[in-house]
């Protein structure tokens, strides 16, 4: 069941990344939703879960993009594993903690990705350092927002259920 949810999350992140984010990227917001999904799943499921979700998400992203297959996969595998291992050791339950993890994970991911491409090609770097930092901040904002929404969702559902039960008790149903 959990695997299905993770798969669904990755698929949703990929669809949004390819259909919604290009419009945002045109406005100067270069978010990597797949990376955000990998980090948030790795925080909740540990190093092995992070490793697998990073591998699958990165390879799918590579297959859909114009680059070498495996570069994004390797970068996201390492990030997923590292974030999972970190989340087991430290308490990262609050949404702003998770936003910080997304920020640092994005910087590490950009380093791996750009570094690997620099090794494979002699045509200069794939992006500027400023671009990497902007992307990390954008990812952190989106990651923090998603973490906050996911954290608030169960409480909101409980409140709604209680309100409905109270109304049923008062007016019958």
């Amino acid at each position, binding site marked *: 069941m959990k695997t299905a949810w993770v798969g669904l999350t990755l*698929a949703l992140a*990929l*669809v949004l*990344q*390819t*259909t*919604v*984010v*290009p*419009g945002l*990227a*045109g*406005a100067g917001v*270069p*978010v*990597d939703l*797949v990376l955000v999904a990998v980090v948030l799943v790795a925080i909740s499921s540990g*190093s*092995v879960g992070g*490793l697998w979700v990073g*591998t699958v998400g990165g*390879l*799918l*992203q*590579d*297959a*859909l*993009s*114009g*680059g*070498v*297959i*495996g*570069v*994004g*996969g*390797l970068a996201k*595998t*390492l990030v997923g*594993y590292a974030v999972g291992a970190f989340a087991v050791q430290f308490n990262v339950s609050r949404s702003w903690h998770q936003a910080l993890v997304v920020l640092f994970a994005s910087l590490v991911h950009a380093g791996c*990705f750009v570094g*690997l*491409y620099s090794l*494979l*090609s002699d*045509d*200069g770097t*794939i*992006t*500027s350092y400023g*671009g990497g930092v902007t*992307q990390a901040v954008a990812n952190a904002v989106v990651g923090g927002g998603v973490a906050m929404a996911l954290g608030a969702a169960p409480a909101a559902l409980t409140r709604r259920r209680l309100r409905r039960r109270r109304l049923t008790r008062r007016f019958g149903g």
Partner: protein
Amino acid sequence: MLLLAVVLGHIVLISLQVNTPSGVRVFEGVTFGLFSEVQRGVARATGGVTHLWDGYVGLVSVEAENTELRRDVAQLQLRLQQERAIAQRVRSLEDLLEFRSDVVYSTVSARVIAGDATPYFRTVTIDRGTRDGVRRDSAVVSPEGVVGRVLSDPGPRAAKVQLLVDRSAAAGVLIERTRVAGTVKGDVAEGLLRMEYVSNLDDVRVGDRVVTSGVDGIYPKGFEVGEVDEVERGSGLYWAIRVRPNVAFSDLEDVLVVVPDATASTTAAGGE
């Protein structure tokens, strides 16, 4: 141990691609084929919502816009007549020189259904594939100018297009005014193009129009690329030239793909 195995797997995967000549990657083909259908559905759904908004809700202040547009159309019609007269004169001069522009291209229109899956590359997915005659390296253009080329082997109903602003994209070009040849390359960071291999003895000015030269065998000759935005003396024998592309790559919706067969509608480079 597991991490090591997965990392090794990735390294093997990458090295296999780097060392062999480029061909169809099974993994890429299957993923692209399946995912392009999902993208097509999502693009249709979002397009429907946008259409509903544009067609009904967003019709405020249309009358004023209409009046302004009618005025623009009148001016453009006048300019079209002038251009037609010039084109007619050029044709008669060409006839005199026995030089005929006989290159006519077939095109199919396509809709952009998705962007790139990573923020590092500039590719888009279009809703036309091998069924419509789209092939690897087919040129993709728009009324504003050159958009890019079809990357790798397309699927039956979708194709991946590398935009001209992608870091690894390039095209053979000419400065229209002086016919000086060079190459434009993409630059992801700034959204501009770098024009290279233009000798610093050649005459290049800011505002010069840049068109395709046709020497790369991908882009037909004469299509507009952009205009020179910046000219600086480079470190070696060449100018360091920045070209601002005509096409707004972040707002692409509909494009034309140049295809080999003559069944589709036709358009001529630089024609009327």
